[in-house]
C-alpha cells in the first residue's frame, strides 16, 4: 500500500540537455507556457490518485475480511459434518 500511495503522487518533469543552456531555455519556456496551467491539473490528478489508492485499499481490506469469514465458516461446516458422521458411527455401533 505504501508503494501504491507513493506511485499516486506524480512529479513534474525537469528538462535536461547535453547542450549548454538548452535545458534551461526549455525550462524557462515551460514556466511561461505551461507550468502553472499544468500544475493545477497535476494537483487534481494527485488528489484523484490518492483517493483511488485509498478506495482500492479499503475494498481490498473488506474483501480479505470477507474471505477470512468465509474460510472460518467453511471450517465450521466441515467440523459439523465430521460431528454428524461421528454421531452416525456411534448410532450404528
Amino acid at each position, binding site marked *: 500500500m505504501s*508503494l501504491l500511495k507513493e506511485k499516486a503522487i506524480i512529479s513534474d518533469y525537469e528538462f535536461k540537455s547535453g547542450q549548454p543552456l538548452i535545458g534551461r531555455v526549455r525550462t524557462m519556456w515551460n514556466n511561461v507556457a505551461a507550468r502553472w496551467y499544468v500544475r493545477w491539473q497535476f494537483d487534481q490528478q494527485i488528489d484523484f490518485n490518492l483517493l483511488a489508492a485509498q478506495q482500492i485499499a479499503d475494498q481490498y481490506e473488506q474483501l480479505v475480511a470477507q474471505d477470512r469469514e468465509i474460510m472460518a465458516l*467453511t471450517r465450521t461446516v*466441515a467440523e459439523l*459434518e465430521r460431528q454428524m458422521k*461421528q454421531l452416525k458411527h456411534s448410532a450404528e455401533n
Partner: protein
Amino acid sequence: MLKLAYFSPLPPERTGIARYSWEFLPFLAKSAEITLFHPAPQTITDAPYPIQHIDDYSPNRWEYDLPIYHMGNSRFHRDIYEMLKQHPGVVVLHDVVLHHFMAMEQYGRELGYAVDVPLGMDIRIRQDERDLNRFDLNRRVLDLALGVIVHSQYAADRIAQSHPELPVALVPMPILAVAQRETPAEHPLTFGCLGEVTPAKQIDLALRVFGRFHAQHPESRFHVVGDSAEFDLTPVLHSLPPATRANVYLHGYAATQAAFEAQIDALDVVINLRYPTVGETSAAALRALAHGKPVIVFDHGTYQALPDSVAIKVPPMDQPALLAAMQQAADGLPAYRNAARTFIETHHRPQKSAELYLTFLQQLFDS
C-alpha cells in the same frame, strides 16, 4: 476401521510426494479403508485402491470419515488445494512455507489473506523473489485444516506459533528400508545430488566445491540424479576445469523407482543442500540414509534434527565448510553407512508412521 478419502499427487507425476504416497499407502491401508481422489484418475495405472475423479468427492463425501489432503509447493497440489477450500479436512503439510505454490495461484488474494493488506499489496507490486521465503503463506491452509500432520519438530513448532489451538501430529516420514547391498571394494569416491534440480538445492554451489575437491582427489565423481528442466546447470559445468567436468554426470529424472534406487546405490555420499529452506523434510535425504549413504546438509530448518552420526551439517552457503564436509564424509564412510541404515530402520519405519497417522485421525474423528 476409518474410511479415508486420500488426496495426493500419485505416480507418474514427478514429485516426491507422489512416491511417498505410493510407498506409504499399503501400510496405511492395513488399518483403514482408502479411496484415492485424483484430477486425472485414468493416468494412474495399477492403483491398488479404488480411485475416483477428484470432483466426485463433493457429492459422495458422506461416505468417508475424513479427507486427507497432501500439500506441498508443486503444481500437482492445485486441485487438492481447491478441494481443501471446499471441504476442509486433515492436511499433511510437506512444506511449511507455501509461498511458491501460492504464487502460482490467485496470488493477490492469497497475499491479502495471509499477511496484512498493505504489506500484501506491496509484495504483489514489488514481485521480489526474496519475499517467497520470508512469508509462509500457509495461513489459509492452516485456518481450514481440522488437523495437521507434519514430519518434523521444526514444522510442528512453526505451526504452533501461528495456530496454537490446531491439533498437530508429528509423524516421522515413512521410509522403506533397503536391503543392504555389497559395495564394490574398489570404486571411485562418488558424490551425488538427488531429486529435481532447483535453484534452492544449490547444486551449482555443490559442483563448484566439488571442483576444488576433485583437484585433490582426481578419482572422485559427482552424479546429479533428477530433472533439471527448471534450472540450467550448463554455465556452472562450463566453469569447471575439463578434468572435473569429465567426472560430473547428469542423469535426468529416473523413470522408475528401481532406476532411482540403483542410482542412489551408485553413490557414496549424498549432498542434499537447500537454501533457502521451505521447512521441508527431505525424502531424498532420508532415502539416501536408508541406502546407507551419509548426507551433507545445511545446518538449518528440519536438517538440524538429523543426528551427527548420519549427517554432516555445514553453515548455509559456506563453501570452505562444505569442502571440509566432503573430506569428512569420505574419511568416515564405513561408520556413516551403518549408522545411516540403523537410523532409518529405527526412526522411519512406515508401519510405525501408519500407526501414528491412524491414531491421530481416529482421535480427530472421535473428538
